[in-house]
Structure formats: C-alpha cells, structure tokens
C-alpha cells in the first residue's frame, strides 16, 4: 500500500517471549497501479474514438460524347461561385448581356455566417423546409410509414418549388469552402445539388467583382 515504511516492525514482546511475526495482510499495489495507468495511457493514445463520418454527394453524370443534350430550363435555381475566401451567388439563369426584360447577371456577395448563406437558403427553400416539418410530424405521429416518408421527401425535394443549387468554383477555391457550402445546402434540405464547371464569362465577372 501507499504508506511510508515504518522502522522496527514489531515482533518481540516485552516479556521476551518469542511470538510469530505478525504478517501484514496488505499487498503493495503500487506496481499494479503503475501498470494500469501505463495501459490506460497506451489505449488512450492509440485509439480513435469515433469512426470517420462521410457526406455523400451525387455528381451529375457526364454527358455521353457526341451527344449534346439541349440545356434544360431549371426552375428556381441559385448558382454559387466559391472562391478562395469569398462566396458569390446569382439567382436564376445566367445572362452574359441584358436580353429582353432580363438584365445582365450580377454577382452578389455573401458569406458563411448565420445571416449569409444560411438565411438565404432557408428563405429560398421555404416550401421544402415547411413540407419536411409537416412530414416529420406525420411520421412522429405514426400516420405515415417510414418508406412513404422517404418517397414523399424525395418528391418534395425535387418539386418545382424546391430550390436547386449549382456550385461553381474558381481555380483558387479550397476544399473547406466547397464542403462548407455543401454542408449548408444539406442543412437547408436542398435536394438537387450540382457541382458544375465554371464558364469563362463568369470568371471574368468574378475578376471584375473581386478587384
């Protein structure tokens, strides 16, 4: 035991009679404690607490060569452009020049703060978020089955009212910004996320904006 050694250690009684030495029943535990903590340290150092988490992202299939599908008109779309330290977006289709009643596309700057992209997405995707809340409630009450919940959620996310997001990156964008943006989209329950290549005219616009 952890105690300070005492000198002597009785045995001889005063009357000179020899008695059997009183053996201590205590065991010195210090080496065991040493070992236990050594093992503890080893396991703490070498173990990883949680398994890695993954976030899935489905990329659009590459178009077959020689087959040029006409670009589909997308309703309710937002395009984000990620750069090294900034985030821009524009709504709807891209117009390099003013055409008809549509003005030339302007890039709007936003950020990853709670009032930036998160608010923007929550407003834009309101119908889906509200619809999902309703579905969640029905699921919690047991009115709909798990499979129908999933089906209806997918349908909801792909409806015309749902916000669709295209992501473009310039050559200096970091993976952190890219993943952070995807993360924000997942938080806002965006169903259609498409990372696509940036166009030269957009790059020019970006250059003019960041100057």
């Amino acid at each position, binding site marked *: *035991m*952890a*105690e*300070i*050694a*005492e000198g002597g250690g009785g045995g001889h009684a005063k009357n000179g009679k020899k008695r059997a030495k009183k053996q201590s029943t205590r065991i010195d*535990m*210090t080496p*065991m*404690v040493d070992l*236990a*903590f050594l*093992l*503890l340290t080893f*396991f*703490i150092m*070498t*173990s*990883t*607490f*949680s*398994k*890695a*988490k*993954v*976030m*899935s*992202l*489905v*990329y*659009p*299939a*590459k178009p077959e060569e020689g087959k040029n599908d006409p670009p589909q008109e997308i309703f309710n779309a937002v395009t984000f452009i*990620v750069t090294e330290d900034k985030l821009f977006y524009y709504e709807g289709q891209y117009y390099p020049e003013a055409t008809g009643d549509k003005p030339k596309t302007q890039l709007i700057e936003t950020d990853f703060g*709670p009032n930036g992209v*998160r608010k923007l997405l929550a407003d834009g995707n309101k119908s889906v978020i509200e619809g999902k809340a309703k579905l969640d409630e029905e699921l919690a009450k047991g009115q709909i089955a798990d499979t129908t919940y999933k089906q209806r959620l997918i349908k909801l996310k792909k409806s015309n009212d749902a916000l669709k997001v295209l992501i473009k*990156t310039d*050559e*200096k*964008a*970091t*993976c*952190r*910004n*890219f*993943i*952070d943006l*995807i*993360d924000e989209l*997942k*938080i806002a329950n965006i169903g259609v996320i498409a*990372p696509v290549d940036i166009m030269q005219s957009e790059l020019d616009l970006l250059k003019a904006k960041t100057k």
Partner: protein
Amino acid sequence: MPKIKMPKSAPSIDMTPMVDLAFLLVTFFMLTANFRSTEPVQVDTPSSISETIIPKNVIMVTVDKGGHVFFNITGAESRQDLLEQMGAKYKIAFTKEQKENFLKMTSFGCSMRDMPAYLDMSAEDRQQLVEKEGYVGIPADTTRNELKDWISLGNSVAMQFGKISYEEALTTDKNAIADDFKPKFILKVDSKAVYVYAKNVIDIFRDLNLNNLNFVTNLEANPNATQ
C-alpha cells in the same frame, strides 16, 4: 497549550478505488479502441453535419494539401487481387514479402514503377517520403493516369468480393441488401487543399461513370437539430 496528538500509524492512502477506476478505464478503452491506422500523410478533413458512418467496403482516394493523391482499398482479398492485376497490367512482378507488405499498409501513394521499392520501405520512411521534394503520389494526370486504373480495377475486384460476401450474408440474413456490399467511393480531402486538385480526382471517377461520391468529414452540430 494542549498538545496536538498525532496518530501513530503511518500515513496511508487506500488505493483500491483508484485501482478500480484505472482498470475500469483500461477495460473501456480496450473494448472500444479501434486502432489509429498509420496513414502515410496527415489529412485535416473539413466538417459537416452528416452522421453517416464510413461504410465497410470502400475505395478511398486521399488528396493532401499539396495535391498528392493516395489510394486505399479495404479487404485483404481485394488488395491481393488488385495488386496482382495492376502488376500484370504494368508488367511488374512482386516478391512474396512485397505482397505481404501491401496487405499490411493502408493508403499508398506512388507510381507503379516505384511500387516495389515503396513496398520494401518501412512505414516511417513512407511518411517521410511525402515531405521530400519532387514527390508526386499516384500519377493522375492525362498523360499517365495510373489512378484511373487503380480505381477501375479496384472497383471490379471489390464488386466481385462484395458479391461473394453478399451471398454469404444471405445464408444467415434473408434481408441483406445487395447495395450494402457494393464498394463505396470515398474522397478524403484536406480542407486546405485547392478544390481543383479534388476536382481532378472527381473527374476521373466521373469518367468511369462513378458519380456517387462520399467526402470524409468531421462531425459538427446541426443547427436545425431539435433536441
């Protein structure tokens, strides 16, 4: 003044509760530990709210912040088969020890030409190799796209063994889902890496018509979560 009487017995502490606690913790860590595997490069992954745990049968491509590419595939049989197929394709023969080393390591990043030498190295040497100048990782450019071969051959090998393990699982569990046993594609990118590096790898996956990718992320709290 009264004298304070000190107890005569030696000052002693009962260590038993401490020992109990220590061993309890040791037991806990022994049972929960999944050992940190030695990766040739440290990658600081970005964070997201996703709670999906990394699947079992995976093909993982790591991109570090310098843009070097590393490849990893799970399953001892898949690894063995894949190395043999790649060796046959690039006409490189491996010794028995080299094959065994290949099974032991996790991610690797070197060209097929340097593979035998890379396999002879110790794990520490491989880690140091990454910091050397002129280090390229797995060639993934258009002129020599070895990564594409690793992915496409790895996919077919992992698909084959996934099918076998699915059939095995069916004998005990009638509800096994075939998709759970198919290889999943994992991208582990450093948060400081430029996206163009990752995009290069993603485009290789997309060229092979593998569009469903997963990014390794750290878990962060979901702001919408209702507790």
